[in-house]
């Protein structure tokens, strides 16, 4: 046994921020997922290059639709729901830092509700397109972007639900306070990534 030693017994059991391994794992996962969306954006722009008329004329319907522009009002509402949902996420994030059990329960409950509403709203967004995914390459890439993001809303909301159930049944400890904060980071990403994607798939066909 050595007389010199590095005693770590006094070190904290967890860190609530970017010093945590979980924080890095989550962030790097989001980097991977951002790459997925970047590939889909590249596909969208590549498809754009290959159609002289954009969005492509929809010939697979009983009546040919010359300009199948995506509807704007409903998806804009979904975007607003998502943007507003950042507020409970930020509050949960801050309250977790203060180890406020009750505050985290309330704000996470609201966040889960927002997630469910956003998922349902996005589901109807998908059905408000004049085209379905199998109509042409443009339709496929738009559906893939929108439904991959829907999948993220569902996954994040499921994760938040699990987190909420835990928070409801246990007093908040530092480890789970960190998990709440990491879940909030995921939600910031879900909302943040949708802003450029929304602009691309709803305004892209009108201006590109």
């Amino acid at each position, binding site marked *: 046994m050595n007389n010199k030693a590095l005693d*770590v*017994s006094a070190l904290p059991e967890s860190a609530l921020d970017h010093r945590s391994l979980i924080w890095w794992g989550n962030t790097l996962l989001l980097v991977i997922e951002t790459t997925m969306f970047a590939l889909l954006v590249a596909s969208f722009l590549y498809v754009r290059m290959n159609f002289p008329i954009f969005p492509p004329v929809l010939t697979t319907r009983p009546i040919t639709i010359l300009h199948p522009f995506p509807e704007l009002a409903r998806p804009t509402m979904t975007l607003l729901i998502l943007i507003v949902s950042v507020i409970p996420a930020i509050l949960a994030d801050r309250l977790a830092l203060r180890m406020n059990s009750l505050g985290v329960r309330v704000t996470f409950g609201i966040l889960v509700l927002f997630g469910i509403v956003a998922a349902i709203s996005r589901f109807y967004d998908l059905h408000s397109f004049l085209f379905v995914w199998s109509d042409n390459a443009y339709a496929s890439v738009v559906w893939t972007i929108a439904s991959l993001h829907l999948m993220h809303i569902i996954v994040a909301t499921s994760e938040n639900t699990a987190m909420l159930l835990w928070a409801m049944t246990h007093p908040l400890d530092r480890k789970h306070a960190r998990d709440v904060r990491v879940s909030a980071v995921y939600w910031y990403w879900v909302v943040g990534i949708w802003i450029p994607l929304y602009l691309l798939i709803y305004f892209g066909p009108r201006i590109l």
Partner: protein
Amino acid sequence: ALHYWYPKWTGHMLNDILGKWTFWLLFIGFNLTFFPMHMLGLEGMPRRVYTYDASTGWGTLNLIATIGAFLMAAGSIAFVINVLRSRRGQQTCGNDPWNSDTLEWATTSPPVPYAFVYQPVISSISPMWDDISRQPVVIGTTTHKREVITTTILEALPDHKHEMPADSIWPVLLGVAVGATMAGIIFHPLPFIIGSIVVLLILFGWFWRGGEPASLEKRSPEIEAEAAP
């Protein structure tokens, strides 16, 4: 790399002369196999065909590639013989047969699952050359759960202890569920929906921590001895 870490992995040294034979046979064989394929490709031969017309003139280069493949086979056989030979002897190679610089050579060959009873403290990129036995060790971690020391990113100063999960059946179940879902969607879209729900439930089970007993670790005899008053 295989020859380098084989002693750490098994505790046996591989024979030097046979190792050199393996290297040269594989090195020459590999280049003899694959370099002619570049030229064949430029001449228009497609990959993964087993026959072609004699008039194409690809015969000589393919013959050279075949000779190369047999040399590689000979190199591989030399390696297998080397491994079998090394298993016969009883003598082990010690912890650090290469006088190497990195930390894996500080523990026993083959290493124990926990690697170190006391985690060493490292102050350079070649800790073995800094006389590791004089380096301080980490103390103060608990034996009741798995912990790793997390350091700051740039300075590598100890920052906090991160608790690692205990043994769990859930990851295996997740693997089975994902595999079954992937196999299922070849035939029908419905398994995607069912699979997603099952996977989500399994993930819930996995993340729902707290049901485990406090200590799941089989402790090493050394740690047991330390723990005994």
